[in-house]
């Protein structure tokens, strides 16, 4: 009996000592870790959850995003996937006192596959959003979780999903919070369409086509070698049919057949205009139809 007690006490003491060492090591690891992230590997794609800060402070904002890296030759989809395909969906689970904005989508590329045209991403892409932390949050740690579902395709498609999370500690000093966006958020931000200031923009549906004509405030199209137009709204136009596009100085004209799956014309569309596959703009355009 006494032997047992002696061993038990000894074990407890040793356990406490090891726990102390472990905790010390852990806190060392946490404070020296780079931007907090978790990763998953899935068929034909790797995903990683990124956070723009190492810690949080009440009353502040940060960015959280899921980075997708498809295998070479494979792609995922834009918010409007095009003729077929399925856009990735992110469902966030956040601690109380944390709210998140909608994801901001980098501009897509056109992806022809056999007899169809889809819109998406071949390269690494991050889908990220800004979040806000209430003033009165007093937790010492905040958990950020995401359930991600996607479709990754080459000619055939593989659906995938992952559940990832990051826990952020409370900042001991608010100067810990970096005001500058590092990678991968810097690249993400650079790939977001910017608002296009226009003198006039209109969209008109006539004879089975949607035509957009706009006059930008500056000579945006003057040096452009290539201009592409994509609508954020699904099923307004079809992308697998030839388009008409012409541009000069500050003027752009674009025509595309209406989608057979279009119900009623929306009152406006949000067009994403990509110039030389390098910079992108967005513009909300009211839609009228031939009477």
């Amino acid at each position, binding site marked *: 009996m006494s032997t047992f007690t002696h061993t038990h006490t000894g074990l407890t003491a040793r356990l406490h000592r090891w726990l102390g060492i472990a905790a010390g090591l852990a806190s060392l690891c946490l404070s020296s870790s780079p931007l907090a992230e978790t990763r998953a590997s899935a068929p034909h794609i790797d995903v990683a959850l990124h956070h723009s800060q190492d810690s949080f402070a009440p009353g502040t904002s940060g960015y959280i995003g899921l980075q997708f890296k498809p295998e070479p030759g494979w792609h995922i989809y834009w918010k409007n996937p095009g003729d077929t395909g399925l856009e990735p969906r992110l469902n966030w689970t956040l601690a109380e006192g944390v709210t998140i904005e909608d994801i901001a989508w980098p501009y897509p590329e056109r992806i022809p596959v056999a007899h169809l045209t889809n819109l998406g991403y071949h390269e690494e892409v991050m889908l990220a959003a800004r979040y806000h932390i209430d003033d009165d949050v007093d937790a010492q740690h905040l958990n950020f979780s995401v359930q991600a579902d996607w479709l990754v395709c080459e000619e055939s498609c593989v659906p995938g999903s992952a559940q990832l999370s990051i826990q952020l500690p409370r900042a001991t000093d608010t100067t810990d919070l970096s005001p500058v966006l590092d990678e991968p958020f810097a690249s993400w931000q650079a790939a977001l369409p910017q608002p296009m200031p226009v003198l006039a923009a209109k969209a008109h549906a006539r004879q089975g086509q949607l035509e957009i004509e706009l006059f930008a405030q500056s000579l945006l199209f003057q040096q452009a070698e290539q201009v592409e137009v994509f609508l954020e709204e699904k099923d307004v136009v079809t992308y697998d049919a*030839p388009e008409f596009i012409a541009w000069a100085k500050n003027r752009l004209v674009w025509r595309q057949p209406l989608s057979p799956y279009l119900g009623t014309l929306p009152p406006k569309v949000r067009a994403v205009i990509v110039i030389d596959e390098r910079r992108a703009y967005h513009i909300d355009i009211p839609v009228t139809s031939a009477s």
Partner: protein
Amino acid sequence: MKTRKHNLLTLCTSAAALLFSLGVNAMVKPGENAPDFTLKDSAGETRSLSDFEGKTVILEWTNHECPFVQKHYGSGNMQQLQSAYTEDEVVWLSVISSAPGKQGYVSGEEADALTDSRNAKPSFVLLDPSGDTGRAYDAKTTPHMYIIDGEGVLQYAGAIDSIPTANPADIEKATNYVNQAMTELASTAPVSEPLTRPYGCSIKY
């Protein structure tokens, strides 16, 4: 206006306009007569749409390797639809338009083996390796569903249901467009959603 691209695309647009006016690649829409076709079934017998005049025919484009098809077969959803309708005198035709060597292409024997192993209940499995029938219907995805009434008029074309994912858990939450259209047809009501955007893997023509 920048002329280089403009001229090339004007040419493309004109050529396309000519093709459209010739009816090539024109999508058959609900309300129109469904195109007749003649295909070999999995047993090697010849079947035509006109063989089934007077009966309602459901066309189901399929590819057993597609995750969206697997969603509906793995869950038993497709088999349940096939049983229910074939018991009700509806002709259910599963159509495979995958080209030889491409995903989903099967021989007649392989198609029958799949039907057995999945306990599927189509009236016939039709093999369309040239893709001619798929293209005649502008079939885009697997699955892609069509309902043709007894008079040969297309009444529904599009998705099997309203939630375009590969997740079987979404089946019970979705509106099944085949059931919806068939119920409306049975009560001689107009089909409320005759044309929906199909979802699935692209057909491997």
